[in-house]
């Protein structure tokens, strides 16, 4: 096989030339194989005349241009140039055939001179001013077009060549070309080889026109391949051997042309398929085959140009097979080394150890991306939407491969092994497919139903994340790994692990600087953490975790689960970006569950707080959206029916709690509709476990309602029996005792416990409604008076300073509210009242009732 490569010194032109007669002998096969065939055949048939015709055409245009240049008729010049370019593209095929891609000199000269002329006109401002509007407009267009055209690689090169010695006559260029054609051609090819070799994927150098010519070329040889593949009889064998070399070359060329215009993508895939069959039939080296397979997957990926649209599922299926195939092969043949860091020159395809450039991880990642896109594209409730395990298997294989290539102690060439970075990427991909799934075994393990040594997804995630923590050098991968890890912990109710990991990572401090996708994962993690906290009866933590997400109206966007409403402030581009970032449906977090959990936690915190600070002027809102819901329900309807929506349930429950009716509260929060909508969704509908959450919730409701009750009604009690309370709230006396004690310790309740009689004795030092209002009023009036005095000072100060008497508008000389007889009582009284109020406020915690100061005497 190596002889193909030995033959590499041959020039392309020779081989194609040698092919040519053969090709014409078999015209039948070209019929449907390529797009250009018709055109081509036609030009072949009338080859001489066509050349003349085309050249004639070109030359007339060139002559015209010269004339118009003299006349300075810019408008006609523009149309002529445009025609000329059109004619030239038409003539390409002919030029290709006749001059092997060399652009005729007269054409180049015309372009160069045209540009000079336009530039000179452009520079000459006076002349430009004299031009008519139409003229100057076409001048600008022409200048731009010409520039663009000439700047293209090919033309630029030609023009540069022309400018080196512009004086060569055009007339003899044809002869000259005839002489040159051979070696210039080979030169050309040599150059192209050199160019292509070092940078397969990235080279963007080859000009468009050359590329087109190559495509042409290839399609020709391509036809050979197809032809050869279809009727692979033994007689052709020797011929084929020769042919295979160009086809290999074509592959490289193709690869070089990847991602450029005018490259038929479908054809490319066909070609590579053929190549693969050839390679396999001929037992080529695994290195070669792997190389081709890489190319093939890349080509299929390229088939779909627009990133935002998903691949067709069948196409994806195809790539999936291909990649799996490739992975299998790589796994079975350990002597093939694949790596991104292997340069094109260092590839060794023919002898072991084979080295192939290419990154299997990138391929798998790309495949995964496409997969996600397909999932997002199809209807989440249809049958098509199922999560294929194929992807996971594939990723597992890729990781296996990477693991097998991990550097060993005795390995000399470390750079060819898997780098830790690659390993991290692989692991992260794996984790990405595990972390959001609930593994029931973990719960069962915690309950002892499953032996502790059974492997669960948690260990898998754990192991991989830890590898990433210790080996990752970029912050991005580690951050993601932490996020996934926390998510996974939270999903399985490992609240303390999740929280500790969260706190240790200090993610919240610098998440602002992260990229949007990481932020989305952060939000998802936060939400999941909140849910976990709720299930573990950490209501306050749950509330805090969910507060940020829930207080914005764009929950959906923050979690990348679709956009909540049309947003006019986003550009088309941003919207598409948002679309791209969206999560596939199976990874969504139930938003209603989220909101309900948030509102219920807010209720459990806020209602007792509201009851405790009913008259506090400065009380703050713990949860704005909860208050919004409360107010909303009050405003919206005149008559309140039984609640239907989840929010209405929570609002109704809050009202019941406010009254101290815990049973009603519980019945509102946990009833049939709420069960169906929310509570059954915990743990993926695992009833016994969801029941535990409900029990926890009931208990919390009892406790908080008791607190609310004490806050609200403590002023009507002299003492309360704890036994009665425990009966009222169905809590044990011990629980009531502990709750009341806690309230007393926190100075929330002015009371003391009387142990022998099991009662709570109220101290009645809480200000009554009237008293607290009077305090508020005193505060307000004090403020007011202070402001008034400041205002007066301002005016007087101004007056004194500027020495202008009575400059004000009439309030300077008279206090606005004279302390006359009628108001005097109120205002004079204020001073005493305010002072008393202040002293009284300080004494709040004293147990002695300073009742004498305020309120009516008995």
């Amino acid at each position, binding site marked *: 096989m190596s002889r193909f490569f030995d033959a590499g010194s041959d020039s392309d032109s020779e081989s194609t030339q040698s092919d040519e007669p053969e090709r014409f002998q078999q015209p039948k096969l070209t019929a449907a194989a390529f797009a250009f065939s018709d055109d081509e055949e036609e030009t072949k048939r009338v080859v001489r005349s066509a050349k003349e015709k085309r050249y004639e055409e070109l030359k007339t245009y060139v002559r015209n241009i010269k004339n118009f240049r003299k006349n300075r008729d810019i408008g006609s010049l523009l149309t002529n140039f445009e025609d000329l370019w059109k004619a030239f593209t038409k003539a390409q095929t002919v030029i290709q055939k006749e001059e092997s891609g060399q652009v005729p000199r007269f054409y180049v000269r015309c372009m160069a001179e045209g540009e000079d002329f336009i530039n000179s006109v452009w520079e000459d401002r006076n002349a430009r001013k004299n031009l008519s509007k139409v003229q100057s407009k076409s001048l600008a267009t022409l200048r731009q077009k010409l520039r663009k055209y000439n700047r293209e690689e090919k033309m630029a090169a030609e023009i540069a060549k022309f400018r080196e010695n512009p004086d060569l006559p055009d007339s003899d260029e044809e002869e000259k070309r005839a002489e040159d054609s051979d070696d210039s051609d080979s030169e050309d090819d040599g150059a192209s080889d050199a160019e292509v070799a070092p940078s397969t994927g990235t080279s963007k150098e080859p000009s468009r026109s050359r590329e087109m010519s190559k495509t042409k070329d290839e399609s020709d040889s391509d036809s050979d391949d197809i032809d050869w593949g279809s009727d692979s009889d033994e007689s052709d064998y020797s011929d084929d051997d020769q042919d295979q070399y160009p086809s290999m070359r074509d592959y490289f060329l193709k690869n070089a042309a990847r991602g450029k215009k005018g490259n038929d993508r479908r054809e490319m895939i066909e070609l590579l398929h053929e190549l693969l069959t050839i390679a396999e039939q001929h037992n080529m080296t695994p290195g070669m085959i792997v190389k081709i397979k890489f190319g093939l997957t890349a080509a299929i990926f390229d088939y779909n140009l627009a990133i935002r649209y998903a691949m067709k599922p069948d196409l994806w299926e195809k790539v999936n097979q291909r990649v799996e195939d490739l992975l299998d092969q790589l796994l079975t043949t350990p002597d093939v080394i694949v790596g991104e860091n292997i340069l094109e020159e260092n590839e060794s395809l023919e002898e072991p150890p084979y080295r192939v450039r290419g990154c299997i991880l990138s391929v798998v990642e790309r495949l995964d991306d496409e997969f996600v896109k397909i999932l997002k594209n199809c209807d989440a409730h249809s049958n098509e939407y199922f999560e294929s395990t194929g992807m996971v298997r594939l990723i597992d294989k890729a990781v296996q491969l990477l693991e097998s290539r991990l550097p060993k102690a005795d390995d000399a060439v470390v750079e060819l092994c898997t780098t830790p970075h690659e390993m991290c990427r692989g692991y992260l991909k794996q984790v990405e497919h595990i972390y959001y799934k609930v593994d029931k075994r973990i719960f069962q393990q915690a309950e002892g139903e499953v032996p502790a040594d059974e492997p669960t997804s948690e260990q898998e995630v754990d192991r991989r994340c830890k590898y990433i923590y210790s080996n990752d050098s970029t912050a991005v991968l580690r951050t993601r790994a932490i996020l996934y890890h926390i998510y996974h912990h939270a999903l399985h109710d490992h609240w303390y692990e999740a929280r500790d990991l969260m706190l240790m990572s200090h993610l919240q401090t610098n998440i602002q600087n992260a990229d949007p996708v990481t932020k989305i994962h952060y939000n998802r993690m936060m939400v999941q953490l909140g849910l976990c906290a709720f299930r573990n009866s950490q209501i306050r933590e749950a509330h805090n975790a969910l507060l940020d997400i829930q207080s914005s109206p764009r929950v959906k966007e923050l979690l990348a689960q679709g956009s909540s409403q049309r947003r006019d402030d986003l550009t088309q581009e941003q919207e598409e970006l948002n679309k791209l970032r969206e999560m596939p449906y199976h990874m969504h977090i139930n938003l209603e569950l989220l909101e309900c959990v948030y509102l219920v936690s807010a209720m459990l915190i806020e209602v007792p707080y509201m009851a405790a600070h009913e008259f506090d002027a400065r009380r703050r809102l713990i949860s704005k959206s909860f208050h919004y819901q409360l107010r909303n329900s009050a405003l919206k309807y005149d008559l309140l029916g039984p609640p239907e929506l989840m929010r209405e349930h929570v609002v109704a429950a809050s009202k019941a709690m406010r009254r101290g009716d815990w049973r009603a509260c519980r019945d509102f929060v946990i009833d049939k509709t709420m069960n169906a909508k929310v509570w059954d969704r915990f743990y993926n509908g695992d009833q016994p476990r969801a029941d535990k959450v409900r029990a926890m919730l009931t208990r919390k409701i009892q406790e908080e309602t008791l607190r609310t009750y004490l806050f609200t009604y403590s002023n009507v009690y002299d003492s309360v029996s704890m036994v009665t309370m425990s009966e009222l709230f169905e809590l044990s006396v011990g629980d009531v005792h502990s709750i009341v004690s806690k309230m007393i310790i926190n100075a929330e309740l002015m009371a003391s416990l009387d142990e022998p009689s099991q009662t709570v004795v109220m101290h009645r030092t809480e200000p009554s*409604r*009237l008293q607290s209002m009077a305090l508020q*009023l005193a505060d*307000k009036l004090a403020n007011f008076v202070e*402001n008034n005095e400041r*205002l007066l000072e301002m005016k007087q100060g101004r007056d004194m300073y500027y020495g202008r008497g009575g400059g004000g508008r009439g309030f300077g000389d008279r206090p606005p*509210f004279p302390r006359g007889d009628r108001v005097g009582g*109120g205002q004079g009284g204020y001073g005493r009242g305010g002072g008393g109020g202040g002293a009284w406020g300080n004494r709040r915690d004293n147990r002695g009732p300073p009742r004498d100061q305020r309120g009516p*005497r008995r």
Partner: protein
Amino acid sequence: MASRSRKGGDNDSHITHVQIDGLAMMKIIKHCHQDASTPADDAQGVLLGLIMENKLEVTNCFPFPRSIDGVDDDRYQLDMMRLLRPVNVDYLSVGWYQSASSGNYISRQLLESQQQYQESIEESFVIIYDPVKTAAGALSLKAYRLTKQAMELVKDKGYFNFDMLRNLKVGHENMFQELKVVIRNSHLVNALLSELSEVFPETLNLEAMDLGTAPVLQRHLRSIMDCTDEMSQFHQFQKQTVKQQLEKTRYQQRRNVENAARKARGEPPLPDEDFNFKPIQPPRDLEPGVIVGGQMAIYCQQINNFCSQALAKLFLVDSLHQNSPQRPLGQ
């Protein structure tokens, strides 16, 4: 009506008190209580009667209809008066009445409509009836008319600016003139009543003994607080105005200095044009200054009255409950 003479004086009227017929009063009370159920706006009506030397006699009244589309209020009023005439009822309008719960009656509308009344009928007045207070046991009926200054103030449509307030020396305390209200029953009615009192045994009126002080006080406090808030807005405005004034003066001085300099150099002085200082919009026509102030004064007065009464009552109860366990009241 227009022919009635008018004697000037400090109180710019010779009317000293209002005499209201039992019938008219009952009608007012009935109307106000009926309308109290709909808190949308206050019940209003026209008082009919005569002017007798220094007293105003109110002998009858009729309510304004709730504003219904298509019914012209003025037309209705005239029609009513015309129709009452044949049945021998006094048909001269002497004023109007309005219900107001716990003293929240001072408002711009009141001022404006009273001003209109007083414009056309010099002696007219407004009776304010408070159903809430009445329910607590004390009939609350008050008659007011605008003072001369207040009339001047309200008459001008651009009223409530500072200059006017200063020139007229008007504040909330001298906007209204309160008139004494005398309730009078005809002899026939008196006779009927005494007859009835024999038929029905006298019932004890215990409403006046209500000891629930807290709700009333709370309500008043809340209202005062609202007023205070409005006053603070007014403050805000004043502060801004003062600031702007300061800025203006500063600007002017700078301009003066500059002009002096220019004069010295022989250049023409800069024009003395406006310095594009927008006048700050006063909050709702300076209502806080006068109306809210008046309102607050009324609240305070009511609290005072109420407290003195309540205190007396509480002392009374205290002596009655000498032996009962200690327990604060009013909660």
